[in-house]
């Protein structure tokens, strides 16, 4: 285990990413403490620039505290990101495993299905889904999961295909192990690394998707999220630039951190690949 952390720590960017991520999670967790009450409550006069009346990042068109909005919004973004990723993983891993391990007709069918989903413009589909099922937290999570699972299925399928013909899996067959035992004890543990790396990148994409949907007005109307904050600041950008700038920085930092962590995980789990990525001998 300590080997893993040592390899992870070698990538400075990944360490920075992890720190940022922990900070964001902390803010999300302690939001009700730092900013008690609801972020929808009026906290001061509208359109106050940053720093006035005790509001660090200014206030919006209805006098709400932008900083409180960002802190509470962190919870929504992280929650949506995590849950939709888990859902997408569940679908993607299952389909990919079926296609990769069974091969033949099952593989063909799953691949056609996956290709279809990758061809259709995913964001448009997400918009359509949320619009039709009315925007709520669950419809947003559902829509994001539906458009995010194809890359997982592809990666898992590729891993399973390659592992299935690996000699230690063949040895397990010759030993007489059951199919389930082979998948669980031989294939899965060796397929986990790319899945873990992919998962961290998927949370980042999910957060971007969720903020884009909220920006367009398709977020859950009861939840204050970063995308919503930016969307509400759009029409008044000339007079209240801080409404759009700060939530965007929050999104940027979180997504950046997730990407850095993803790369760090990749290096830590696949030391050989790390060398080719960096070009070191």
């Amino acid at each position, binding site marked *: 285990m300590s080997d893993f952390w040592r390899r992870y720590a070698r990538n400075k960017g990944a360490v920075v990413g992890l720190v940022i991520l922990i900070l964001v999670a902390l803010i999300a967790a302690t939001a009700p403490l730092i900013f008690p009450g609801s972020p929808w409550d009026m906290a001061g006069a509208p359109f106050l620039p940053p720093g006035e009346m005790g509001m660090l990042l200014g206030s919006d068109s209805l006098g709400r505290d932008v900083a409180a909005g960002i802190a509470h919004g962190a919870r929504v973004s992280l929650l949506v990101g995590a849950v939709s990723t888990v859902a997408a993983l569940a679908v993607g891993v299952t389909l990919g495993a079926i296609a990769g391990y069974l091969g033949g007709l099952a593989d063909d069918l799953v691949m056609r299905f996956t290709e*279809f989903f990758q061809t259709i413009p995913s964001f448009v589909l997400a918009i359509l889904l949320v619009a*039709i099922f009315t925007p709520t937290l669950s419809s947003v999570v559902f829509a994001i999961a539906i458009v995010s699972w194809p890359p997982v299925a592809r990666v898992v399928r590729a891993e399973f295909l390659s592992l299935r013909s690996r000699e230690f899996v063949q040895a397990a067959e010759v030993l007489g192990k059951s199919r389930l035992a082979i998948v669980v004890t031989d294939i899965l543990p060796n397929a986990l690394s790319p899945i873990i790396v992919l998962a961290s990148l998927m949370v980042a994409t999910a957060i971007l998707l969720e903020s884009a949907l909220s920006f*367009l007005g398709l977020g859950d109307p009861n939840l204050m999220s970063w995308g919503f904050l*930016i969307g509400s600041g759009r029409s008044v950008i000339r007079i209240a630039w801080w409404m759009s700038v700060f939530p965007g920085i929050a*999104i940027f930092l979180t997504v950046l951190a997730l990407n850095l962590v993803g790369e760090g995980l990749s290096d830590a789990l696949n030391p050989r690949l790390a060398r080719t990525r960096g070009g*070191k001998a």
Partner: protein
Amino acid sequence: MDPSKLPGFLLRRGVKAVIVLLAIIVCNFLLIHAAPGDPASVIAGQSGAADEKFLAQLRQQFGLDQPLHVQLWLYVKGVATLDLGFSHRQQQPVLLLVAERLPATLLLTGAAFGFAVLAGVAMGTLAAQRVGSWADSLITVLALACYATPLFWVGLMLVLLFGVWLEWLPVFGMMTVGANLSGFALVVDVGRHLLLPALTLGLFYMAVYARLTRATMLEVADQDFVKTARAKGVPEGQVTRRHILRNALLPVITFAGIQAGQLVGGAILVETVFAWPGIGRLAFEALLARDYPVLMGVFFATSVMVVAFNLLTDLLYAVIDPRVEVEG
């Protein structure tokens, strides 16, 4: 690929494309019926849902009291004859609305894609050639930053910077309203309006292509045939161009095809921020009014764009890579 096999290849890919489009039409159909509430009110959209006469007319037109498979057939027939429905709110056929706005979106996505590919591949190549140097680190960091920033926020920041604070470039619409320009002056005017939206949409994908190109160039550079080229005494520049780059571009082409769908989706956000008169903007307005027929029409139109683009990239790949055999 052997040139004589080209027509067969195109035919097979064409059939596949049609099947995909059919599946999308069925998808649309299912969505209408999966939505909560009366399908007629979904088809009518929020504005039309109040008009009882219109609803009755819709029910008859779509045969909503008939068995499901008949409805499906009617719907597919409709779309196949390019009848994409009617927007009650805008009082126009959806097809007309989409056809009006499509060129603007094509211009925007085309410009963004061109920029993304050229800048991205150039940056990625540079980074790979100078791997480990400060130039490489700078490009990698820049790419990561562009990749992590939300598209719509970049647009807003550019509006803020160039439109509000510096006032160098126009930030709304495709042309200066009421100017009635033509010829070269028109081109320049559109170009000035196009600059920021195309940059916004393109930056994210520039980052994607830069990272991808860098990774594949490094991977290819490690392969045996590159060493063979050096052993022959081929100068480094030619090794990079003829041997490494050509082979590294193959995954980039494949990836471009896969990314096409997302590029089109990103256009919605960019057109909203910059009030660019394309189908993305149309979708946003339809969204606000819950005008479902228009939304579905946009979904279909964008799918057609993506399928067509994928066909092109497949063709390009097959032309470049002689190993691609004629298969399904």
